[in-house]
């Protein structure tokens, strides 16, 4: 994550192809984390509701900690992606907070894919950079 924007001169087409690969990797990681975090959050909600009927605090505690840990990873991956895609501030905040609201990760993942990821990947690399001609070589 760090140092990506600081790199200045001397980047050739090779470097840009690498950047495009990094975007794709970041997208994959983001999708993985969005789905895993979302599923665990739903499990947590179901357990929390069940707790009203069956007093089993241990399960909620364990799943709660799993979600907490996953959300930390989700935050890092999602923020990295938001920077790469140059998302405006509000969409970035929406993406980051989605990991705490049940079902929202799925909704936001689809929305981000449709509006930002797909156009960026279609252009070859990040929005403000020229398209990478890697598919032709």
């Amino acid at each position: 994550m760090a140092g990506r924007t600081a790199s200045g001169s001397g980047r050739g087409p090779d470097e840009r192809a690498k950047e495009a690969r990094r975007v794709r990797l970041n997208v994959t990681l983001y999708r993985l984390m969005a789905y895993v975090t979302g599923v665990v959050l739903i499990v947590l909600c179901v357990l929390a509701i069940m707790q009203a009927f069956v007093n089993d605090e241990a399960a909620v505690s364990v799943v709660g900690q799993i979600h907490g840990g996953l959300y930390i990873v989700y935050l890092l991956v999602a923020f990295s992606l938001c920077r790469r895609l140059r998302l405006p501030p509000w969409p970035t905040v929406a993406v980051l907070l989605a990991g705490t609201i049940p079902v929202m990760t799925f909704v936001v993942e689809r929305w981000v894919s449709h509006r930002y990821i797909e156009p960026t990947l279609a252009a070859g690399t990040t929005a403000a950079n020229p398209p990478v001609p890697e598919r032709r070589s």
Partner: protein
Amino acid sequence: MTCGPALRGPIRLGPMSGSPEASRWRFLITPRWLAWHALVILSVAGMLVLGDWQLRRAQAGNALSWAYTFEWPLFAIFAVFFWVKTIRDEVHPPAEAGSADDVGLPPGAPVPASGGPRQPGDAGEPGDDDEELAAYNAYLARLTREVKGHGRSHGLG
């Protein structure tokens, strides 16, 4: 937050006064950004309060709260970290770092035709105009997409 005054001092008096470098930081004291600073400070304060609350719950015997006791301060650190990164991106846009690449591109380098609204003529022209035009076209493309979407883009940036 002492951001505004602290920034103004060195910029006005320092050797960089009047340079493009100095004016790059001016955006931080616009109302829009001041609102963002306030939001970040409020949310960080809120996270620290929540962490303190979880600590007291944990000490009262709630086992799960121990995890959140450490997690809330961590989120507060993340918020500051993300905020600093966002400001740095704004001051030194990644697009500018890439301008040297364009000059280095061989003329007539192949560019996919599906690369958005770039005009066919500017594909092989090196130079700053090319970079600016490409960035502007990308910006226009994004605006178009946002308008075509459900019209709910509230991007402040």
